[in-house]
């Protein structure tokens, strides 16, 4: 659900393969090795610096055939860590995550105790990485709704761990809470809007 007058996140799509070809070398068709991952991450960060905040970054992996652990650590985990260090005003959604991407992504996220919203099939979004059962449940509820108006937030979180769990999900930038109205938004709604 995406309503008119909603929060203004500057959404843009980052096609990782295009970035890789432009920023590293056109020969590389796979996301392998740490230096390659570092170069891709830095290219994404450079693009993000030009955006008005808060912003959402859609990192598209659909054209990536091979993703190794070292590269996943740089492109996914370090991207999230560094965005947090820079003030946490950028939200991330991984798009085009296929079965063979999942293992390296989940492994590096677990290692750093991170999580990210990922599109794992057409219109299907999941929370990958570390998170408690209550966090996953609440995230799933908001994801299913797409948008929860401010007036309904308290009722939603009451049975699902309360405001603390919600606060964690918002602080980890896995849900977006509109600072003007307090509405909750699933990041997938922005991902679709920015497609």
């Amino acid at each position, binding site marked *: 659900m995406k309503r008119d007058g909603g929060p203004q996140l500057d959404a843009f799509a980052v096609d990782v393969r295009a970035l890789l070809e432009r920023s590293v070398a056109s*020969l*590389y*068709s*796979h996301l*392998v*090795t*740490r*230096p*390659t991952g570092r170069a891709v991450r830095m290219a994404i960060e450079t693009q993000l610096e030009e955006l008005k905040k808060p912003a959402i970054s859609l990192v598209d992996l659909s054209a990536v*055939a*091979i*993703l*190794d*652990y*070292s590269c996943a*650590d*740089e492109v996914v*985990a*370090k991207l999230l860590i560094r965005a947090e260090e820079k003030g946490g005003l950028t939200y991330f959604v991984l798009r085009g995550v296929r*079965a*063979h991407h999942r*293992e*390296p992504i989940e*492994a*590096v996220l677990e*290692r*750093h105790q991170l999580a990210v919203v990922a599109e794992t099939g057409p219109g299907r979004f999941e929370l990958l990485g570390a998170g408690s059962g209550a966090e996953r449940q609440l995230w799933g509820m908001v994801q299913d709704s797409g948008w929860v108006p401010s007036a309904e937030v308290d009722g939603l979180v009451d049975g699902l761990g309360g405001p603390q769990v919600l606060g964690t999900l918002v602080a980890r930038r896995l849900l977006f809470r509109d600072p003007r109205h307090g509405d909750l938004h699933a990041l997938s709604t922005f991902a679709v809007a920015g497609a």
Partner: protein
Amino acid sequence: MRVITVPPSLDYRTFDQLVSALALRASPAEPRVLFDAHRVRWVDPVGMIGLLAAGTVVASETGHAPTLHLPADGNVVGYLGRMGFAEAARLVFEGELHLPGRSGGASDVLLEITTISENRDVHDVVDRVQERAGTILSRTLHYPPTAVVQFSVILSEVCQNVLEHAGAPGWVCGQTYTWEKRLGGKQVLIIGVGDVGMGFRASLAEEYAGHFLDRWGDATALEAAFLQGYTRFADQGRGHGIQQIRKQVRKWDGMIAVRSGTARIADVPAWEDLPPLADGIPDFPGAQITIILPAADPDEERARR
């Protein structure tokens, strides 16, 4: 001239014999060294890379490139040629090596001997195996179609191990074999990766030697890296690759062994009789990694799908 006799069967199980021969023949008074491979009848990826590494060590210690006496067996010579041994050996051994080069046509070799000295080499390895590994993994080893991705990731991570931890170039190669005497004639895929760099003990010493005190040595360093994921990098994301390789190799009922200095550590499946940890074996610099993946039972694999 010192003569080092290469074992007739030069593979992951006999590499230590070659290392022993190196140590026994060490003599600064006789800098010229000949590797006599005349009687070699069998060589696998670990053996080929081991021979290149041994030649490199001798050249470094004596200041002279050693000489290599090629096997008399024409099949072995032809095989060395197909595996790209000639191209790599010319950079290590002196004199004319009468080995055929790699043919320009289609090859049945999974991965010829490839030097790993920069990031681009890892990409090259991954690109090359994409073309060949799919067929070999599915038809020869009866692995699921998705295995080519996991296999590529394994290769990428082991090659990066050379770049990040050795501080020196290394080599990688891989090929399938039929083990007539072992595993009931099953096909196996053998990957060898080796370097003559600093090795695990030196790589980890600054960070961890003080912690382990008098227990610190090659075996402790290997246990720390292989079992615990220790790395010299402070970054929490490092040291992950080898753990993931182990996990995947175990899923395929394979064996992975890492030799460094005077120790070797391994994840040993039921079909292999190497000890999980060998300490006090002949000293050799750098690190040598062996991965062996046996064919799956086609019926079991079909049932799993």
